[in-house]
C-alpha cells in the first residue's frame, strides 16, 4: 500500500491518484476574480474619459480603485491561474499526488480570504502607497504565511516524487516560489503605527530602489516565470508534440533567472537614483531581449506541424497568441528601458500600453487557453461551445489591439507634447499640462471600449464554463507507474553545494566584485584572485579527472541543492544593487539638499495623499530632462525626499508633477481645486474630492506616527503629544483663517486643511525656495534658463 494517493497495482506498479479538486477550485477562482479585476479596470478606464464615473463616492475614485484593479488582476486572476497550472502540471511531471490535502485546502481558502480582504480594504483607502504592494500589514503577513504553505506543499511533493529528473517547468516554479518570497518580504518590511497603518522601513531613494526591485520582479517572477513553466508544460500538451528544443529551454531558464532581477532600476531612469544603478538597470534590460525571444521562439516553434489546427482549435489559438504577445511585450520592455526612449515614454500611457499587452495578451490568453484545455479533463465533459470559445478569442484580440493602440498613440502624444520646447529650447511649446490631457481624451474612450471587449470575452468564457461543468462529474485522474520508492533526491544539500564547481565559481565572483569595488593593493589582490580561481579550476579538473557535468546533472535531479543554487543566482543581482544603496549613509545620497521633516499637520496631510492614492496620477520627481525642468523647476535631488516613508515619486502623470507645487498657488486655489478641479483647471479629469472638506481629521494618531518615524531615522525632536497636537492646531488655524479671508469658510480640523498644508510644503527645501510662478507657466512667459534652474547639459549623479 502506497500512501499519498498511491495504491499498489500488482507487484510492479502503483496507482497515483492526483489531487485535481484544488486545481478545479483555483481555475474557477481565477475566472471569477479575473472578471472582477477586469470590471474594475474598465470602470477606472471609463473614469479617465468621464470624471463623473466615480458617482461622487470616495471608494469608487481612481486613486483607490486602481490599486484594487492591479492587485486583483495580478494576484487574484493570474495568481489563482498560476496555482492551478503549477499544481496540475507538477503532480504529473513528478508522478506524485500533492503532498497534503490539508495544505492544499488551506492554500486555496487562505488565498481567497486575502483577496476578499484586499477588495474591502483598498477602496476604504487603507493602503501602503507602494504600487502592487499596497496591502496593509496584517494582509501582508497573511500573504507571507499562505505563500510559505504553498512552498511547503510544493517542495514536499517534489520530495515524494517518482520521477528521477525535474522537467524545466518545475525549475521555473522553484524560481518563482523562492524569488517571490524574498522580494515580498524585503519590500514589505514596515513598522506598524496601528492595525491598519504602517510606515515602510526604507525611505526616499532607497525605498524607490527597493520598490522597483520588487515591482519589476513581481512582473518577472509572478507574471512571467510561472507562466513560462506553464507554457513549457501545456503548449506541448495541447500541440501533442514535444517542446521544440529542450536544450534551448535550459539556456532560457538560467538566463532569465539570472538577468531579470537586475533590471528593476529601469523604472527610475533620469530620476534621482544614482547613475550607476540606472546604467545597470538599462544594460540588463537590454540583455533580456535574447533569452526572452529564445523562449518565445521555443514556444512558437513547438507548434510547428500543427498550425493547421490553430485555425480551428481555440486552445491553440490562445496559446499561439499568448506566446506571440510574450515576444512583443519582451521586445518592447527593453526598448522602453533605453534611457533616451524612456525619457519620452516614462510617466505616459505608453508604459500602460506595454503592461497591458503583457497582461492581457500573455497572461490573460495563456490563462484562457489553459482553462479551456483543462475543462474537459477536470470535469470529464467536452467544452459546451467551441464557437463561443473562438468568439472569446476574437473579442479578446480586438480588445487588446484597440487598447494597446490607444495607449501607444496617447503615450507618445503625451511624451512629445510635454517635452516639446521652442525658442531654442528655452520655452515650453505646450505650457499648460492640460493640453496633453484634452488632446488624448478620445483615446481614453477607445481604451475603455477595448477593455470592455476584452472583458466581454471573459464573461462569455464564464458562461461557457458554467454550461460545461453544470451537472458534470468531477473527475480526479490517475496514473500507474513503476513501484519505485518515493523520493528521488540523492544529493544532499551539503554535497550539492560544497562542491568544486560551486566553490571555484564563488571565489571567482567574490574576487571579481572585490577587484571592481576596492582600490589599491586589495583590488590588485582580488584581480590575482580572479586569475587564480580560473587557473585553479582547470588544474583541479585535470589533476583529479573530475567530470563536473555529472555534478550539474545530479543537481538538476535534486530539488533542494537546485533550489539553493537558483536562490544564489537570483540574489546576486539584488545584493549588488540594493546593499550598496541601503548601506550608504543618507548624507551620501542627499546631493547637497537635506530634507527637513514635515510638520505634524503636513505629515497628516501626506498620509491623506497616500490614502487617496494621489501617486497613481501625480509624480513627485522632476527628471533631469529639459522638458521637466522648464515645466516644474529644478530637477529633484535625492535629499529632497530622503525621509519620505513611503517615497511618492509615482510612475504615471495623468496630472502634473507635484514635487515643487508648494507655494506655486495660494491656499484658496487648492481648496477650489480639490472641491471641483475644473473650476481651476478646465478640462481636468480629476474627480471632485468634496468629502475632504467635510471629513474631520483624526489628529490623535500623529504623535504615535511621529514616534515610528523617529525609529526609522527621521530627525524629529522628542516632544510630548500635547505639544505636537498644539502645533497642529496652530498651523491648521492659520490655513483655515487664510481660506476664510479668501471666502471659503472651513473648520481647521477638516482633512482639506492638512492636505493643503502638505501640498504647500512640497519642494520647500533649503536649496529651492523660489518656485516657478503659476502665471509664468500658464501664460507661457519666458521661463528661467536651464542654467538658472540647475540643469546643465549633462546632469550627472554619483
Amino acid at each position, binding site marked *: 500500500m502506497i500512501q499519498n494517493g498511491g495504491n499498489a497495482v500488482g507487484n510492479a506498479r502503483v496507482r497515483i491518484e492526483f489531487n485535481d479538486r484544488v486545481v478545479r477550485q483555483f481555475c474557477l477562482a481565477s475566472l471569477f476574480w479575473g472578471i472582477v479585476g477586469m470590471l474594475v479596470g474598465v470602470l477606472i478606464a471609463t473614469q479617465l474619459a468621464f470624471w463623473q464615473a466615480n458617482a461622487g463616492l470616495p471608494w469608487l475614485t481612481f486613486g483607490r480603485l486602481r490599486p484594487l484593479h492591479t492587485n486583483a488582476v495580478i494576484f487574484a486572476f493570474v495568481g489563482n491561474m498560476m496555482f492551478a497550472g503549477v499544481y496540475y502540471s507538477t503532480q*504529473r511531471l513528478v508522478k506524485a499526488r500533492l503532498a497534503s490535502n490539508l495544505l492544499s485546502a488551506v492554500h486555496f481558502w487562505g488565498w481567497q480570504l486575502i483577496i476578499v480582504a484586499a477588495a474591502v480594504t483598498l477602496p476604504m483607502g487603507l493602503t501602503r502607497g507602494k504600487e502592487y504592494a499596497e496591502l496593509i500589514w496584517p494582509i501582508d503577513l497573511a500573504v507571507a504565511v499562505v505563500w510559505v504553505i504553498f512552498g511547503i506543499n510544493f517542495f514536499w511533493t517534489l520530495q515524494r516524487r517518482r520521477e528521477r529528473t525535474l522537467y524545466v517547468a518545475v525549475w521555473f516554479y522553484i524560481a518563482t516560489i523562492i524569488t517571490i518570497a524574498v522580494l515580498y518580504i524585503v519590500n514589505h518590511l514596515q513598522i506598524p503605527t496601528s492595525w491598519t497603518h504602517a510606515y515602510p522601513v526604507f525611505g526616499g531613494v532607497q525605498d524607490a530602489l527597493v520598490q522597483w526591485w520588487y515591482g519589476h520582479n513581481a512582473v518577472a517572477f509572478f507574471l512571467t516565470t510561472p507562466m513560462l513553466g506553464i507554457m*513549457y508544460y501545456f503548449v506541448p500538451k495541447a500541440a501533442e508534440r514535444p517542446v521544440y528544443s529542450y536544450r534551448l529551454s535550459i*539556456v532560457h531558464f*538560467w538566463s532569465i533567472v539570472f538577468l531579470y532581477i537586475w533590471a528593476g532600476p529601469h523604472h527610475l531612469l533620469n530620476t534621482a537614483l544614482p547613475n550607476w544603478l540606472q546604467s545597470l538597470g538599462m544594460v540588463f534590460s537590454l540583455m533580456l531581449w535574447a533569452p526572452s525571444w529564445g523562449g518565445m521562439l521555443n514556444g512558437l516553434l513547438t507548434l510547428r506541424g500543427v498550425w493547421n489546427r490553430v485555425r480551428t482549435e481555440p486552445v491553440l489559438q490562445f496559446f499561439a497568441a499568448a506566446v506571440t504577445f510574450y515576444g512583443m511585450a519582451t521586445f518592447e520592455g527593453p526598448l522602453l528601458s533605453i534611457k533616451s526612449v524612456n525619457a519620452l515614454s516614462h510617466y505616459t500611457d505608453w508604459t500602460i500600453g506595454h503592461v497591458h499587452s503583457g497582461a492581457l495578451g500573455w497572461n490573460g490568453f495563456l490563462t484562457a487557453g489553459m482553462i479551456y484545455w483543462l475543462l474537459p479533463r477536470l470535469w470529464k465533459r467536452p467544452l459546451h461551445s467551441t464557437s463561443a470559445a473562438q468568439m472569446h478569442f476574437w473579442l479578446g484580440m480586438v480588445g487588446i489591439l484597440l487598447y494597446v493602440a490607444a495607449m501607444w498613440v496617447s503615450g507618445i502624444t503625451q511624451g512629445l507634447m510635454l517635452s516639446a520646447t521652442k525658442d531654442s529650447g528655452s520655452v515650453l511649446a505646450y505650457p499648460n499640462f492640460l493640453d496633453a490631457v484634452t488632446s488624448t481624451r478620445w483615446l481614453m474612450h477607445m481604451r475603455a471600449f477595448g477593455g470592455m471587449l476584452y472583458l466581454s470575452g471573459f464573461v462569455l468564457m464564464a458562461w461557457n464554463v458554467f454550461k460545461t461543468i453544470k451537472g458534470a462529474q468531477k473527475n480526479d485522474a490517475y*496514473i500507474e507507474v513503476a513501484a519505485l520508492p518515493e523520493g528521488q533526491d540523492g544529493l544532499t544539500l551539503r554535497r550539492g553545494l560544497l562542491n568544486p564547481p560551486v566553490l571555484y565559481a564563488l571565489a571567482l565572483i567574490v574576487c*571579481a566584485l572585490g577587484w571592481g569595488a576596492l582600490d589599491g593593493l586589495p583590488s590588485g589582490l582580488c584581480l590575482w584572485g580572479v586569475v587564480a580561481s580560473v587557473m585553479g579550476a582547470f588544474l583541479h579538473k585535470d589533476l583529479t579527472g573530475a567530470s563536473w557535468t555529472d555534478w550539474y546533472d545530479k543537481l538538476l535531479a535534486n530539488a533542494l541543492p537546485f533550489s539553493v543554487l537558483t536562490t544564489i*543566482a537570483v540574489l546576486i543581482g539584488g545584493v549588488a544593487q540594493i546593499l550598496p544603496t541601503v548601506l550608504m549613509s543618507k548624507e551620501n545620497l542627499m546631493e547637497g539638499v537635506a530634507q527637513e521633516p514635515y510638520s505634524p499637520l503636513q505629515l497628516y496631510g501626506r498620509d491623506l495623499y497616500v490614502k487617496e492614492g494621489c501617486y497613481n496620477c501625480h509624480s513627485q520627481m522632476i527628471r533631469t530632462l529639459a522638458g521637466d525642468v522648464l515645466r516644474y523647476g529644478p530637477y529633484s535631488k535625492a535629499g529632497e525626499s530622503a525621509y519620505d516613508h513611503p517615497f511618492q515619486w509615482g510612475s504615471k502623470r495623468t496630472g502634473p508633477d507635484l514635487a515643487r507645487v508648494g507655494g506655486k498657488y495660494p491656499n484658496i486655489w487648492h481648496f477650489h481645486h480639490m472641491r471641483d478641479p475644473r473650476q481651476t483647471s478646465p478640462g481636468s479629469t480629476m474627480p471632485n474630492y468634496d468629502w475632504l472638506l467635510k471629513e474631520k481629521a483624526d489628529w490623535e494618531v500623529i504623535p504615535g506616527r511621529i514616534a515610528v518615524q523617529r525609529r526609522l531615522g527621521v530627525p524629529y525632536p522628542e516632544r510630548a503629544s500635547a505639544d505636537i497636537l498644539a502645533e497642529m492646531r496652530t498651523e491648521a488655524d492659520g490655513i483655515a483663517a487664510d481660506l476664510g479671508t479668501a471666502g471659503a469658510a472651513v473648520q481647521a480640523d477638516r482633512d482639506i486643511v492638512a492636505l493643503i498644508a502638505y501640498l504647500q510644503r512640497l519642494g520647500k527645501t533649503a536649496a529651492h525656495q523660489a518656485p516657478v510662478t503659476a502665471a509664468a507657466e500658464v501664460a507661457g512667459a519666458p521661463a528661467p534658463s536651464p542654467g538658472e534652474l540647475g540643469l546643465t547639459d549633462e546632469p550627472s549623479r554619483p
Partner: protein
Amino acid sequence: MFRRLILEDWQRSLSILGWAMFAFVFISTGVRALLLSRDEVGRMEGLPLEEDLHE
C-alpha cells in the same frame, strides 16, 4: 588606461562585472545544454506528453 576611460567610480564597474557574470552563466549553461545526450533530451521532452488515466 581603459579602466580610467570607462570606470569613473567603482559602482560603474558593476555593469561590466554583471555582464561578465551573465556571459559566464549563459555560455556555461549553453555548452552544458549542447552536450546533453540525445536520449536524455528525448526523455525530458517526453515528460509532459504522458497521458492520465480516468475511471
